[in-house]
């Protein structure tokens, strides 16, 4: 079996020899941006090969245990951390990428952020008005809509109540979900098939249009001739173990890299430091570092019921903060609780009475870089939380504490070193506001990653232009969050998809 038919998905068990394919466009990575690009390009009549390193998951493959789920669906078993300021960060490895295991949050980048991008990074066509048609097209396809009230569950509604009591703006989160049942299982895969992850939405649509999808193929190098990319080459890899076997070579008129903000720069570096005349490939690494607080209420919250992340507040967005509700598999939730022994067991018993809310922060001063590991395509992520950004995160903790007590919490568990493990009143919680804290006192997580191949109008200062085309190559495109010039202050998926949508239409005209 040496050819792949239009509309075919190739899975690991089918590879029995080396494979060489021709296409108009090869798209590397099947996450939200790669899937959008593949579908839009097939709709434009182009022949497309979409390549994904991970396997497809069907509901019978979803692992409900949080730890094992991460081990199966995340790169490095979900245990990847940054160096410098140690912070866990995850990247999915599955058909559909992160959309399989994220909570489907869709936010448009605020207009003031996009205006800043245009001003500071010499961009001319990336205002909110420029992107709105692309946002709309994606919203229509995925059914992006506010989380319905009947599946919010008490955990989300308490957040709303707390915000209302304090006069903070809040709203149900817009998500790419149709028919949510409030199972709270977004992070392990939606068994209700309600979340419109790419594997059940954009990728089937691309297949209907004739795209060819290769799963379990790890792209190792970009092929070039002069200043043109001519294709990619990689290997079939076994699911989970990643053991390489047959070679896969795809020749194409254009190459779209949508492997993710940490994988794309590694691929460029491993391909001979491609597209890096600016020296910006792998640089400027940014996150939305997040902090969270657990609150314990007097009455049961039944936290496992309700949309995983159903409510948010953008009230403090201009201060660099976005606040939101959160639920994770019980095992992951429990990891946050302090102590050991019987004290820990007693706290675990409070989980049915608890809610977790988090804040993600805009930390434009906190930068890092991505480098390839030797003899591996896994990245080394170096990143340091700038001391000036620590107060943004402690401010988030203080505001969350206020919202919890305004919503009626009897206790909060801040999980901050140097602060009491449990705080029972707003007065006690003032320690979060008043005590100077260091980065190492906080329990951080950073799952929104940006800027490692940033767009900039000046080729000396950025890797790609506004259409995602590498300044150094006329047909090599990047379509993941690496092209963001700065963090967008809100969840990035919808914006990244909008940029990929625009880029795909541009590519279709160019080839």
């Amino acid at each position: 079996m040496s050819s792949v038919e239009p509309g075919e998905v190739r899975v690991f068990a089918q590879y029995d020899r080396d494979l060489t394919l021709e296409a108009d466009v090869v798209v590397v990575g099947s996450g939200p941006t790669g899937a959008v690009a593949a579908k839009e390009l097939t709709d434009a009549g182009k022949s497309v090969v979409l390549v994904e390193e991970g396997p497809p998951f069907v509901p019978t493959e979803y692992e409900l245990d949080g730890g094992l789920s991460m081990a199966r669906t995340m790169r490095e078993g979900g245990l990847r951390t940054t160096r410098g300021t140690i912070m866990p960060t995850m990247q999915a490895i599955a058909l559909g990428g992160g959309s399989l295991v994220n909570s489907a949050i869709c936010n448009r980048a605020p207009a003031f952020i996009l205006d800043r991008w245009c001003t500071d990074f010499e961009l001319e066509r990336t205002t909110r008005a420029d992107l709105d048609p692309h946002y709309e097209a994606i919203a229509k396809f995925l059914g992006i809509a506010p989380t319905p009230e009947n599946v919010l569950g008490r955990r989300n509604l308490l957040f709303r109540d707390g915000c209302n009591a304090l006069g903070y703006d809040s709203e149900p989160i817009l998500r790419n979900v149709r028919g949510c049942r409030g199972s709270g299982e977004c992070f392990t895969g939606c068994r209700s098939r309600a979340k419109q992850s790419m594997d059940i939405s954009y990728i089937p649509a691309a297949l209907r249009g004739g795209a060819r999808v290769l799963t379990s193929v790890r792209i190792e190098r970009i092929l070039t001739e002069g200043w043109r990319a001519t294709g990619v080459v990689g290997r079939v890899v076994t699911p989970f173990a990643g053991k390489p076997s047959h070679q896969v070579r795809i020749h194409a008129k254009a190459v779209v890299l949508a492997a993710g903000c940490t994988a794309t720069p590694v691929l460029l570096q491993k391909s001979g430091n491609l597209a890096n005349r600016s020296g910006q490939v792998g640089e400027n690494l940014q996150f939305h570092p997040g902090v969270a607080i657990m609150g314990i209420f007097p009455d049961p919250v039944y936290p496992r019921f309700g949309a995983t992340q159903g409510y948010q507040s953008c009230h403090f967005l201009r201060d660099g903060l976005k606040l939101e509700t959160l639920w994770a598999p019980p095992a992951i939730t429990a990891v946050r609780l302090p102590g050991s022994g019987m004290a820990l067991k007693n706290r675990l018993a409070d989980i049915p009475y608890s809610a977790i809310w988090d804040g993600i922060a805009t930390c434009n001063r906190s930068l890092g870089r991505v480098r390839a590991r030797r003899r591996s395509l896994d990245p080394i992520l170096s990143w340091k939380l700038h001391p000036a950004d620590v107060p943004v995160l402690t401010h988030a903790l203080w505001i969350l504490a206020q919202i919890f007590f305004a919503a009626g919490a009897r206790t909060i568990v801040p999980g901050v070193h140097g602060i009491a493990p449990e705080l029972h009143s707003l007065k006690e919680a003032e320690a979060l506001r008043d005590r100077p804290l260091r980065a190492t006192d906080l329990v951080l997580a950073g799952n929104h990653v940006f800027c490692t191949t940033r767009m900039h109008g000046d080729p000396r200062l950025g890797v790609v232009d506004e259409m995602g085309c590498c300044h150094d190559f006329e047909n090599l495109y990047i379509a993941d969050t690496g092209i963001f010039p700065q963090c967008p202050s809100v969840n990035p998926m919808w914006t990244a998809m909008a940029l990929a949508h625009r880029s795909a239409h541009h590519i279709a005209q160019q080839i």
Partner: protein
Amino acid sequence: MVTALWAIFLCYAVSRVAIGYPDPRRQHRGLARGEVAFISSAAEAMYPAGGPIPSSGLDADLPGYLERLLAASHLHIRILLHLLFFLVEHGTLLFPTSGRGGMRRFSSQDVEHRVAALDGWAESRLFFRRVVFTSIRAVLTMGYFAHPPVVRSLGLAPLAIDSPICEADLLYPRIGERPESIGMTAADLTAPSEGIPLPQDGPLYPGFAEPPP
């Protein structure tokens, strides 16, 4: 003299690392005997018997869980997990607990000393030690919560959900299988979810339900 000291040190190191561990109740693939002893003793200290959750860490068969987690993990994660076990097991040499026998390996200490040792990691002024504690507690907690009676007692067990059959289910086989194994056609497609909230008292997912008496 130096050679003799080295010999003594080596004997001590070998005896500390390799000798005196009890035989595990069953073999665990990918885990050494000492690691099984460490995981069991850490589980007992982290999740003792009694209290609001009937199951203890020992009941939850955490070595079995770690065996599965290691099997599902990449090589360098496996190496890191083995290092983590080693570090906490023998970290009592560098960070002994107070009282007699505070420098004995973690798994050879009594429960009170083990809890004190864990608290020492958790509350250390050294960030590195706190990270180690967070890591060991994370893997143990994930294993503890993989034990169905634990999540059942907290009302957190997953419910049974009938997944609608959608177009994607006709495209993707189970991992490792060929498309011919899918065994469904367009005639098998079902209506998508209508968004009816899950009932809080619905039947539990198989494997989490209470076994029949």
